[in-house]
């Protein structure tokens, strides 16, 4: 968190147009921060009428969303955790028994699990990194282009809109030797999907193609916040396009970038559809989700499968934690919230 503060302090001096930002802070102090200082620790009972109605309104506004989410997922999540502590194969219900953490030991000592884990990490890191670069370029183009904006924006979003399974089939056909145009073009006589390295590259390509627009959309929201006069001012000070991008745009966009990265990383770590269609996890290309599917859904081993689900969940939670704590991704409701 201190890091986040520091970086903002660094960003502030050179940027004259931090003015609106400052104004926001002041206004936030007016109602939000100030309210907490007054009504905080020292005395809950001393809430003013305004604060009390604010709380009431807040709870009213949040209640429906919270209720729906808990109603639908509460039980399934608890059930999964409970299952992970059982030996429970759906086909042998008589053998069901409580085994404590034995399933966790089994999974964590399995080489299959760690292979999948490595593959998943690799795909996640590589695809998110590429997506960030391409997504930023795409966002800039969508936001700044002076010709054919509607066309560009619409077509750029098409990959994201297309059904993943169908897109994955399109890639699969395209890369199949003899019958696909890409295979014939780039790798005549060989079958790129049958070798681990090239199969992983194709999976990553399919994933990047599909989700870059999502990244771009989230980044575009941040881009819209970059004040034009700030860019003009930087331009007059003699900053080139690259400097303007790094010194002016990136700092302002930082929250949007981190949110986009967070969501894509969480999502990429659970990659399933593309692998399922392209290789079904053959040649050691299975991700942790594919492995969980094999054990939970196909083998009906609810114990082992649920253990994997919980482990995936923990990994993803760890990623989120790292993002929020180390990089200072603004989690709504955290201390940094509303302060940008």
């Amino acid at each position: 968190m201190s890091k986040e503060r520091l970086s903002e302090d660094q960003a502030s001096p050179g940027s004259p147009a931090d003015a609106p930002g400052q104004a926001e802070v002041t206004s936030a102090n007016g109602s939000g921060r100030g309210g907490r200082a007054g009504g905080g620790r020292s005395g809950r009972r001393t809430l003013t009428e305004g604060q009390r109605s604010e709380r009431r309104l807040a709870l009213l506004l949040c209640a429906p969303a919270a209720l729906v989410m808990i109603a639908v997922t509460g039980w399934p999540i608890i059930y999964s955790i409970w299952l992970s502590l059982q030996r429970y194969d759906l086909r042998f219900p008589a053998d069901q028994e409580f085994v404590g953490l034995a399933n966790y030991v089994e999974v964590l000592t399995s080489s299959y699990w760690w292979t999948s884990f490595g593959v998943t990490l690799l795909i996640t890191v590589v695809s998110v990194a590429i997506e960030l670069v391409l997504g930023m370029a795409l966002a800039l183009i969508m936001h700044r282009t002076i010709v054919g904006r509607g066309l560009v924006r619409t077509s750029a979003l098409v990959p994201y809109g297309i059904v993943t399974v169908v897109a994955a089939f399109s890639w699969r056909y395209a890369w199949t030797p003899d019958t696909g145009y890409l295979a014939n073009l780039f790798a005549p006589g060989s079958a790129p999907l049958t070798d681990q390295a090239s199969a992983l590259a194709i999976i990553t390509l399919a994933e990047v193609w599909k989700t870059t627009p999502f990244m771009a959309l989230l980044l575009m929201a941040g881009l819209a916040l970059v004040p034009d006069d700030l860019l003009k001012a930087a331009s007059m000070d003699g900053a080139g396009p690259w400097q303007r991008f790094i010194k002016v745009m990136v700092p302002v966009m930082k929250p949007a970038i981190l949110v986009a990265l967070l969501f894509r990383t969480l999502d990429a770590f659970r990659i399933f559809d593309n692998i399922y269609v392209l290789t079904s996890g053959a040649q050691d290309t299975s991700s942790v989700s594919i492995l969980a599917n094999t054990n939970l859904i196909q083998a009906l081993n609810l114990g082992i499968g649920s253990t994997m689900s919980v482990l995936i969940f923990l990994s993803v939670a760890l990623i989120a934690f790292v993002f929020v704590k180390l990089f200072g991704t603004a989690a709504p409701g955290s201390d940094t919230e509303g302060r940008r």
Partner: protein
Amino acid sequence: MAAFGGTDTRARKLRWSLLNTLVVVYALVPVLWIMSLSFKTPATLNDGNFIPREWTLENYRSILSTTEFLRALVNSIGIALIATAIAVVLGTMAAYAIARLQFPGKRLLVGVSLLIAMFPQISLVSPLFEIERTLGLFDTWPGLILPYITFSLPLAIYTLSAFFREIPWELEKAAKMDGATPGQAFLKVIAPLAAPGVFTTAILVFIFCWNDFLFALTLTSTERSRTVPVALSFFTGDSQFQDPTGSISAAAVVITVPIIVAVLFFQRRIVAGLTSGAVKG
């Protein structure tokens, strides 16, 4: 619009056109490949040619002549629209509270919603199936709408509250000074300002619902509520082992059209919203 480069408009336009072409090619080539497959005859389907050598509309005729596909299309559109509407409304309310108001349990709410966004959906499917069967929600529209709302809410709340934090809240304060209640201030002043964020979120949520395969496969069993991505997996080839590639491609093209229409439609709003945002800066 101030932008990069000098004042030579023609050169800039040219450069942009070039970049745009690149984007369009990148985005559309795989889609055009599916389109091309959908127009191919069975004999030329897998000749590897990017452009069909023989054209046919047979694939479209065959999917549009069955109730199987049309009914699924209706289900898909209905379910996705309803789920999007509800998720955006609920998400907007919660995001407003999170971005603007101080209240106990805020962190908990954000934490829980992130938790939900992160849990592997595969492991939720079986318990959900059992619950819905008990409640009689299995194979109904609400049976799909509820999970869709749930799983799009975290994203909706997150993106919306990010938008909301950037809104000039002085205006709200001003409205309150003029005697508006917090509720009125929300509806009259803030909501219109938040529109671009809301529309962006709506697109994301709609696409999520539109594309879902896992829930739709597990929580439906008849044409009553089966959606298109799942209906695709019910298409028959000429025999057990033959993939109905032609019909699947045609159906894929048909279901991509609504997305393009939606993006076209919302895209204008986003542009409008973004420009007004720029004015603020």
